[in-house]
Structure formats: C-alpha cells, structure tokens
C-alpha cells in the first residue's frame, strides 16, 4: 500500500453547498436500497408469499361458492395486503441501524426525512408492489368481475404506499428493539385502519356498480398527507432508536 503517497480528498469548504440536489439525493438513496433489497431476495419475497397464502386459504375454509367469494373478496384481499405490509415492516430500518448506515446518514448535510422517504419507497417497491400486481390475479379466483378488478388494483396502488409510510413510523421507533414485530404491528395497525376501510369500501362499491370516486379521493388525500408528514415523524423517531 502506497501509504506515503496517500492523498485525501480535499476538505470541504465551510460554505460548500451539498453535492447533490434533493431529486438526485432521493434517486441515489432509492436505487441503493433497491439494489440491497433485491439481493435479499428471501426477505423481499416473504410479504408476497404471505399475501398469496392468506388469500388462497379463505376459500378453503369458508365456501367455494362464487357469490360468497365475491362478497368477501374486497375485505380478504385488503386484510391480506395489510398483514403482508405489517410482516415486512420490521426489515425497513433494522439492517441500516445494525450495520451503521443510519449513523452515517444522520450527519450528512441533507434532510434525514427525505432520505427515509426514499428508503420507504424502495421498501414499498420491493414488498408492496408485488402485492398490488398479484391482487388482480388472485381476485379472479374469487370470481371478481373485471369492472371491480381495476378499482381493487388502483385502490391497492393508492393505499399500500400509505400503509408502508405509516408503518415506517413504527419501524423507526422499534428498529433498536429485539423481537419488536408484534409491538410494531400494534403501534401502526390502528393508524392503518382508515386505509383498510376505504380500500375495501371502494372495491365493494365497484362490485355493486356504484360510484367509487369518494373513497379513492380520500385514499389519495391520505397518501399525500402521509408523504408530507410521515418523514418528519420517522426522522425524529429513528434518531431516538439509534441512541
């Protein structure tokens, strides 16, 4: 090793502006988390497999009759999506806390909440998006008509990112705790209830052939609200966990 020739990078001037703009920062953090998440394939696929399992068990235990299945489909699929989200949440910040990545992110000249938002979105792409994509396929086995499939998928597309965001608060609070899975679920599940009710309701309305814009608008509003407020809360919570 050429120790004598070792040159370090220039020391930043005190007035330096941060190297990256917010959009680039978001992309850099998002892409890295995506790369790491996809290589932890067994962790990433757990949520999707759990979703399939729960959804396929209901017809076996209840009744295979088409009208029964159609009636329970919105609720079953939405509950399964919520449970799948809860199951994967403990992975959101755990590894970053244990390997020291979070410590590094704390002291950068960038807003921590913004980076956590990028991480949460990457987490959703890996664990939530497969659930959204599989939902219409599984819904067909529940004899859901094509008209309701679109609404179901769209409601999940609007709702599951909100679930992941709300969950990130609990994940940030419990990242430093051992065996916090159930505690995490109890913290965030109450926050998730409005999304669950609106999502299942929208699909129900579509099944009945009624206007679905009301619940979908409300879900969109909840998503916007979560995007704007959750990062601030999660950033505060994760600093406590890292102490």
């Amino acid at each position, binding site marked *: *090793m*050429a*120790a*004598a*020739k*070792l*040159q*370090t*990078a*220039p*020391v*930043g001037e*005190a*007035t*330096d*502006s*941060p*190297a*990256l703009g917010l959009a680039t*920062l978001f992309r*850099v953090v998002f892409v*890295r988390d995506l*790369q*790491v998440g996809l*290589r*932890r394939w067994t962790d990433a696929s757990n949520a999707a497999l759990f979703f399939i399992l729960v959804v396929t068990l209901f017809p076996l235990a209840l009744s295979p009759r088409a009208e029964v299945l159609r009636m329970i489909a919105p609720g079953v699929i939405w509950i399964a999506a919520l449970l799948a989200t809860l199951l994967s949440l403990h992975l959101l910040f755990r*590894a970053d806390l*244990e*390997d*020291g*990545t979070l*410590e*590094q992110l*704390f*002291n*950068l*000249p*960038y807003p921590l909440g913004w980076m956590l938002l990028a991480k949460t979105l990457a987490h959703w792409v890996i664990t939530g998006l497969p659930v959204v994509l599989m939902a219409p396929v599984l819904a067909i086995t529940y004899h859901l008509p094509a008209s309701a499939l679109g609404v179901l998928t769209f409601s999940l597309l609007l709702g599951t990112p909100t679930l992941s965001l709300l969950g990130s608060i609990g994940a940030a609070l419990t990242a430093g705790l051992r065996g916090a899975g159930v505690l995490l679920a109890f913290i965030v599940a109450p926050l998730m209830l409005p999304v669950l009710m609106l999502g299942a309701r929208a699909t129900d309305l579509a099944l009945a052939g009624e206007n679905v814009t009301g619940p979908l608008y409300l879900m969109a509003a909840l998503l916007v609200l979560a995007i704007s407020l959750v990062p601030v809360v999660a950033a505060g919570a994760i600093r406590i966990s*890292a*102490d």
Partner: protein
Amino acid sequence: MLFNRPSGRILESGVLAGAELTLWRGTTFLFEELSFAVPSGTALLVEGPNGAGKTSLLRVIAGLTLPESGTITWRGGDFQEQIRAGRLRMAFSGHALALKPELSTRANLEFFARLAGLQEMVGETLALTGLRDCADLEVRQLSAGQKRRAALARILLSRAELWLLDEPQTNLDAAGRQAVEAAIRNHLGQGGTVVVAAHQTLDLGSASVSHLRLGDA
C-alpha cells in the same frame, strides 16, 4: 490545550470543544463534567481501558448519544446546528462499518462518495487503501481487515473537515495501520481536525497531538 477538571472551564478555545459533558452508564458515571478543546489541524487521542467510555465520548460528539448534560460546540456554535446549517462536514467511523454485505466494495463506496460529490475519486481511493483487487467482490467476502480498509476509504471520500475515528486500526495489518496514520497526518496537514479513540499510540509524526485519558481520572 486540554482540560479535564471538575470546574470544566475551557481555558483555551478550540475549533471543536466539549464543555462539562456528563454521561451515565447504568448507575455509574462514564465521565463527569468532562471538558476538552481541540484546535483545528490537531488530533485528539482518546485513551483508556476497555469500558472507559471512549466510544461513548465519540458518539456524544457525533450527536448519536445525548449526554446527561454538557454541550459540544464547533467554531463557537452548537455542533448539531452547524451540521444542519452545512457549516460542518463530519466523518464518523464507529464499530459498525456502514457496509452493505450484499453490495460490492466499489458500490458501497460509490454511494457515500456520491453523497459527498466525489464519485470520480472512488477508484483512486480503492487503490490507495489497497482494495483494488477486491473492489468488485461483495463485502460479505472481504476479511475483517479489508472491511476496515473500506471504512477508511469511506472516510477519505467524505470531504469532511472533522474526522471521528473509533479504533480505526482494529484488524489491520502493519501496512493498513500505517495507511491510517498517513491518512490522519495528511488530513491534519490540510487543516482538518481528528478525534481518535485508540488503544495503541498512533505515529502521527510532527502533527500536534493531545491526549485525553478516560477511566482513571
């Protein structure tokens, strides 16, 4: 330059200063009313037996652990405020090396280099830290010493003025230890400031070094 006395008065100002820091661990004080000041371009060596609170002191400086009382200042202003305002860049190297085992050494370093705007220096830094041959290996395949070298490379790519290094020579061979010392000397020569927690004495040449002994004060 350095004071560790109950009065806690800072007699000489430094660029980095801690005033009357107190930290509990369980029912005992790790340190009580500890004060220090580090002028820019100098190194502070934090020494002491295992469990004396070296790591805790570094984490308190970095803002990762809140002390029971006391303040950390940088150029006279609150340390954390200076970081948030972008007036201070700090590089912290703790026990956790912030390396993702699934990614290659190069990918790991590129992430932090991009955050500092130094992505074009990654290859050069990998060579300087002796990691050229394992740049494309996943970090999980590296030895403990190679991982520690990667952590040093991350510090070099941080463009930080203040370095906080916790046992930077752990697991390193002789060449690696010399590289750490050379990096610190170089950084001090550029007017940087370094706080090191270490068991063994570092050979920092003519650089101005002060010592802070914890645990038996």
